[in-house]
């Protein structure tokens, strides 16, 4: 097992009702898309926010990531809506 440090921001933080959590994943090559599948499998707001048409972004270790980005043991994986600063 490896452990990821998940973080949620803005609308997703509010919908999920938490801003961070550890997530155990198998110690094999694992992508951002795999992490998202794991969260969608929780159903409810997780499936609604991450499995439907709503757009979201993922950063791995504070760099913008794509579905194919590999995550490693101890990685910080942040999930959030498209940004609206400035």
């Amino acid at each position, binding site marked *: 097992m490896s452990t990821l440090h998940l973080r949620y*921001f*803005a*609308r997703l933080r509010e919908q999920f009702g938490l801003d961070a959590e550890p997530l155990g994943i198998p110690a094999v090559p694992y992508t951002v898309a795999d992490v998202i599948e794991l969260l969608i499998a929780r159903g409810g707001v997780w499936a609604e926010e991450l499995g439907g048409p709503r757009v979201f972004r993922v*950063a791995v270790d*504070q760099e913008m990531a794509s579905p194919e980005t590999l995550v490693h043991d101890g990685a910080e994986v942040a999930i959030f*809506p*498209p*940004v*609206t*600063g400035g």
Partner: protein
Amino acid sequence: MTCRIKIAVQHDDFDLAAEEAELCIGDHGVGATASFVGRVRGDGDNVTDPLLALELEHYPGMTENTLTALAEQAADRWPLSGVTVIHRVGRLIPGERIVLVLTASAHRQAALTACEFLIDALKTDAPFWKCEERAHGKHWVEAKTSDANVRARWGEHG
């Protein structure tokens, strides 16, 4: 060419004149500075549920890294002697300043173009989120497609 880079994420307001002066101090090679200030735009009086405030959230750490990377990209692309980016977070009311982008260069075109690049890129790349507070409730601002289109002009990596 070395470029002074100052990045700050803070609740406090900033002083435009002090920042402009600081970016040029001791450097008589600066011929031009360009700055952009974003403000909380209020609704007019004839709106039934006017904006009371914006609450700005960000991703500490990633925000500073992203802004620094964008400033470095700008300094690679244009002959800049200085870049300052200050972004406020927390609760801000209509009329308040949100963000400052300031560039200094020997040449006006570089300062102006880099300033425009930085605010365009910040809007789509830096992890800030705005939540609107109105009497009837709060709601998160949705990202604009127009901002992504404007960003695309500058190329994928600035």
